[in-house]
Structures are given as structure tokens and as C-alpha cells.
């Protein structure tokens, strides 16, 4: 199953993938043990003429053992996950001083990108509006101000391991730092109407030179 995971190109993506792999191996081991036990029991304790089942009502020791063991494992897993989650989603823990700030707004059935321009303020004359094309430099902290103009959409970049719903009249901050230049798809992941399938934007991660050239071209 692991080779199906798309390539990771964000700084926090590896943390997500590590947790994924960890859970994968943990659940795989549990699955093999449980299914193995089940199959052994089914064969070994199948009904045979003249043989009776043993009258066993249970075992308090075993109940305590597997309750405690499961509790410890799931709490351990939760502990490992808090920092990753906060790193990705908690605005207080975002890296400061973003290199790029963009407002992304979902609208049936497009992503509208608004760049604040050289004055770094939205709603001024030098704003740049682009439909479905997001341009960012590689290895730079990007902050996105995510919102929506109509229904709920969800900003999803599989390769960044990033997904966040966008809501009307609410601004949600999202950050990422891409580690590899390229052109990645931004599908909408939340049902948003009959055009939901095919609501698709593109994230263009440029090298610094190519990004500078792009900026130069837009705001000469």
C-alpha cells in the first residue's frame, strides 16, 4: 500500500508520512496476529465427533492485560501525534515572517488566488488576482489566507500532505514550505456542487530565480 502514497514535497510532510508508516506497521502486525490466531483457532478447535468444547467463562487477568496494553499503545500514538498536528495546523506555531502571503478563495468551481502585491496589503490597487494558478518559490514559507465565496470547499495538495476546508465568511490560515519545484494539482476535496469533480487549481513551485522573474513580470 505504501508505494501508492504520492511523493512528498513539503517540510512537514515527512512527519505525516512517518506517522502513517508507523501506524501501517503497527496495524499490520496486529492484523497478522489477530487473523493468525483466528485461523489457528478455526482449524484447531473445529468440531470433531466425540470432542466437547471446554467450559471457559473468561479470564480477568487477560481482560486487564489487553485493556491496559491497548490503552498504552493508543495513548502513546496520540502523544507522538500532537506535535505534528500543532506544527501543521496551529496558527500560533506557524513559522513567522512568511516569504509569501496569498489569499485563496474557493468559488463554485474555481480557486481564486489574490496576491497582495509589493505593498503587502490586500484590497489595494496592486493586488493580483489569478484563477486556479498559485505561484510560490521553493524552500520558502508560504502563508495562505483561506476562505470561500459560497459553499464549503477544501484546499487539498496531496504532495504537500495538506488539506483544509475553506468556509464562507471565515479566514483560516494555512502554511507550507515546498521542498521541490514543480507543478502540482490543487483539487477541491469537499463536495461543493455539480462541478465539484474537476474543480482543480495548480500550485506552481518555482525555483527562486524563476519566481523572481515571475514577480518581476507581474509588478514591473
Amino acid at each position, binding site marked *: 500500500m505504501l508505494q501508492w502514497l504520492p511523493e512528498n514535497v513539503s517540510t512537514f510532510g515527512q512527519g505525516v508520512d512517518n506517522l502513517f508508516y508507523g501506524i501501517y506497521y503497527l496495524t499490520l502486525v496486529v492484523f497478522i496476529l489477530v487473523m493468525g490466531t483466528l485461523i489457528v483457532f478455526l482449524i484447531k478447535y473445529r468440531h470433531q465427533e466425540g470432542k466437547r468444547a471446554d467450559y471457559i467463562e473468561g479470564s480477568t487477568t487477560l481482560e486487564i492485560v489487553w485493556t491496559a496494553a491497548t490503552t498504552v499503545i493508543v495513548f502513546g500514538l496520540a502523544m507522538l501525534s500532537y506535535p505534528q498536528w500543532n506544527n501543521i495546523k496551529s496558527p500560533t506555531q506557524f513559522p513567522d515572517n512568511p516569504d509569501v502571503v496569498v489569499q485563496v478563495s474557493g468559488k463554485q468551481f474555481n480557486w481564486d488566488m489574490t496576491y497582495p502585491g509589493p505593498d503587502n496589503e490586500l484590497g489595494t490597487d496592486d493586488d493580483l488576482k489569478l484563477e486556479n494558478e498559485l505561484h510560490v518559490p521553493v524552500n520558502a514559507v508560504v502563508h495562505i489566507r483561506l476562505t470561500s465565496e459560497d459553499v464549503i470547499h477544501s484546499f487539498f495538495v496531496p504532495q504537500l500532505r495538506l488539506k483544509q476546508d475553506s468556509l464562507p465568511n471565515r479566514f483560516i490560515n494555512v502554511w507550507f514550505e515546498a521542498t521541490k519545484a514543480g507543478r502540482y494539482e490543487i483539487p477541491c476535496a469537499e*463536495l461543493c456542487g455539480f462541478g465539484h469533480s474537476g474543480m482543480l487549481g495548480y500550485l506552481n513551485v518555482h525555483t527562486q530565480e524563476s519566481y523572481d522573474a515571475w514577480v518581476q513580470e507581474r509588478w514591473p
Partner: protein
Amino acid sequence: MHDNEHASHHHEESFISKYIFSLDHKMIGKQFLIYGLLMFFLGGGLALLFRWQLAYPEKPLPIIGASEQYMEEGEVVTGADRMWENIYESEKEEWLEVNMPNGVVEPAFYNMLFTMHATIMVFFVVVPILVGAFGNFLIPLMIGTRDMAFPILNMLSFWLAVLAAIIMVVGFFVPGGHAAAGWTGYAPLSSDPQWTGVDWGQNLWAISLLIQGFSSLVGSINYITTIINMRAPGMTFFRLPLVIWSLFIVAILLLLAFPVLSSALALLIFDRLAGTTFFTATTEGGGDPLLWQHLFWFFGHPEVYILILPGMGIASELIAVFSRKPIFGYRSMVYAMIAIAFLGWIVWGHHMFQSGMRPGLGSVFMTTTMLIAVPSAIKTFNWLGTMFRGAIKFTTPMLHGIAFVSMFVIGGLSGIYMANTPVDIFIHDTYYIVAHIHYVVFGGSLFAIFGGIIFWFPKMYGRYMNDVLSKIHFWLTFIAFNCTFFPMHILGVGGHMRRISNPMQYEFLQTFEGMNIFITMSAFTLGFAQLILVFNFFWSMYRGKVAEQNPWQVTTLEWEAPTPVPHGNFGQIPTVYRGPYEYSVPGEEDDWTPQARPEHAPATSGD
């Protein structure tokens, strides 16, 4: 006692009062069962329509779809072409023309299909069968009483469910089409017709679910009252079979959860028809789309456990009976179910990790959600413990019981990925979720339902279901089920979003075309396998081998009643002397000791 005996021996009824407006819990149970099976075909058929679109996007459906020549040159070649020609020539805007011209599923129709597939399966198939059919049929029989506490409410519960189903089906044919905002009906997509173009469809969806809510409410009051007040002498709570425990807990969940959905639906209807803005954020103020999600999932997560707990109960019966052993850790099984039901109230936020809810809450809900692994693990280990040193008989119901446990293990383990907030960022809203829910609700609940139907069929209809057909159905279903839903985990890991009608529009999903085709072919096999079950069900009702009173040698009270069970159930109400799982008791001649068998050598035997 005299009045009751009178009722059980001289009860003459007309056709209408016996088969239609029946007050007998067994007939109402059977009515719910047939209702659920009929809706199962509607819900499954919808799934096959959208599965076709996913495998062959924008290609006409087989049989009813137009031919290539017709679509390209307008040349009528096949019978289907002639049908489409007639439809296009007619003055009226035909239903098929709007929703699937030439037999190609339109995107808006696609949204309606998956919305209604889930709505019907959850509210009109699994709950009516598990709670309505098994609850009604089993509770009075297994606790040893003559009927439900409120027979008229019981009848009302069924007929409200019928009314709800009629309204839900009518919704397909209103202008604008049926609800298309997903079974979760997220606002504002659902709360304002301008975003979907769906007008009365969504209203009828909400009204139908409101009525279905009343039906469940009435039913659950009945179950709770009956179980608390009407148990046979000696039937203490800790002598109740686990399936009754599960139905008892589920009735409490239904009683508390459904009103939350009902209020959300009422607010949704106000938003749509009266111009309120409970679920719409406006610049002047107003409501919040997240309010809908909180209300829906505060109901929705207990609802998920409503769908699985009775399955666990049924599986426990099957595994104990056919392992010929007591349930391993009976009390911890009960406590685990109570724990699951309790935790079910404090985990709803795990559906909303990516919704824009405060991230700190995500961590809290992750912790509570992970905790559910504990009672789930307890149950799984106890089922294994029940089989340990047993004498396992591989009857068809037992095969379903074993399938339940193995599929539940997969569904439970895949839940850990989603409970984990960072991993959920990636797999949220992908096919991983679809795979998980189907492993729990189809792999879990439906296998339990199939097993339960075959197991209790002899008590319901006095005949066995045909075992060869049952076995063919089991193996086909088991294999096709896994071929359909297991690959969906892989789609999800690849990032394949759910609820998209055409994956081929995305560059990163191109590699999944073959897998989607494989899933669709398996889904069609799975669908056709269910025809065997339904044929077998109705055929065996009249032609099946006649069954004796207790064909599986079970200890619980329903098998003490004569077959077919008369009105009033028992000649004399049985007295309960022991727990429900006394199998292979040392020193006993038989390997089963019925709950109603008096203790050995009673000193006061003469009467």
C-alpha cells in the same frame, strides 16, 4: 396469566390486522425485515449506477445506454437507441433525459446517486433491519414476554418508517432532482437551493428523515420500556443475551441522538423555506456552516455505533452458539459495549478535523477517538477467546459471524489512521474513508445481518433457508466484498478524493483507472450475489425444509417458544435459571443447558 393464555390460543385475526396493521411484535419485525431488504436493493442499485460512472467516466451504461453510432451520428442501431430517440422526441422533459442523457450519468445526477445511496443504506436499510427487524422480533422472545410494552406504538413505528420511505422515494421525481449534498448534507450546500439547483428534493430528504426520526424514537421508547419492565422471572440484566444488551444500548443511543438530528433538520428546513440563516454566515451576522456539522455529527457518531452495536450482539450469539462455548468474558463484553456507547458521544469532532474547527479541539477529539480502540479490542479478543478450545461448527450463520469479526478487525484498524489527526489531513475526504465505513457497516453490520437472518429464519418462518444457496451467497459476497472495498484503501492512500464523478480529470489519479474498473466489476458481482439471498429468502419462506423447534440447539428463550411462534409467544412464560451461554457445561449430558431448564433434582417437583 389466564388472560394471556386466552390470547395465545384463541386469537383470530383478519388478513389486514394480521399482516398489515399488525400489533404483533413478530409480524412487525418481519415487516421491517422485508422493508429493509427492498430498500437494500434500491440503495445497492444506486451504487452500481455511480460505480459504472467511476470506472467508465462519461460512457453510457450497459443495456440502457445508447450505442456509439447513435451518439456520434444519430443512427438508431439498438433497442436502447430507439428508447432514447423516443425520449428526445417527446415534448415533455423526461426524467432520463435530464439525469442521464444517452445513459451517461450527469455530474449533478452522480451527486444525487451517492447522496441517496448512503441515506438509504444508513436510514432505510441497516437501522430498520438491525433495530426494527431484529429488535422487534428478538426482544420479547429472548427476554421471555408476550409482546412489546406498547404494541400500538410499535405499529406506528413501522408505518411512520413506511411514510418516510415513500417521501424519500418521491424525492427522486421532483423537479430539480433529489438531495445532492451528500448524506451528511453539509450547509450551506444543503441549506440554499442556489448552490445545487436542488429544490424540493432536499426538503423532502429532510422531511423524510424527520419522520424516520419519529419512527426510531417511538421504537426506542418501546425497546427500553420492554427490556426494563417485562423480563421473564429470573431474567436478570446479567442473564440477558448480548444481542439484547446491544439493542438496549442502541435504543438509548437512538432516543438521545435522533432528536439532535431532528432539530438540525428542522433548522435546515427553516433555512430553506422560511429565510432564516442558521447555517449561513452572512456579513451582517447570522449563523455558521459549522453549526450544522456539529449538530449532524453529534447525532452522526452515535448513529455509527447504532449501526454496528447490534451487529456485535448478533455476532456474539452466533460465535457462542457455534463454538458451543460460553461467551468469553460476558461482563466485559457488556461493559465494552457501554463504553463504546458512552465514548460515542465525545468523539464527533473527528469528522471535523479539517473543517476549520479550532486545532486544539482536534487533539482532544483524537484522544477520545483513539480510546475507542480499547473497548473494540476487548470485544475482538473476547470473540477469539470464545472460539478458543471450542468445538466450532462451520454452519452458514457461523461463517457470517467469523466474517463479521475479521471484517470488523480491518475496519477497526483502518480507523486508527483516521483518528490520527496528522494522517487524517491526508486521507480525510478520500476513498480511505469510504473503505473504512464500508468495512464497518457492510463488512460488519451486513454480515451480521445475513448471519442473523439465516440463524433466526427457522424461528421466523418455521423453515430453514436453503443451505447451498446460503453458502454460495456467503462466499460470493465475502470475496466480492473484499475485492470491492479493500482496493479503496489504496485509492485513498493515493489521494483519490471521494464524491468526484470523474477521477480521470486529475493528473495524479490517472494510475488508478484500472483499479476503479476492478472495483466496479467486483461491485456488480457483489450486487448480483445479493439476488441469491433475496431469492433464497422468499423461496425458503414457502419451500424451505421444515425446521424443528430448536434446530441449532441454542440455550436462549426464543427457542423455547413453539415454531411457528403463536400470538403471545409462550404457552406459559418461562422462568430463567441461568445465563444465556451455558454451553458444554461439565457434568451435563448435552452440550447446551437452556436458560429455562430447571436446576437439577428440584426438591419440590410435585405440583
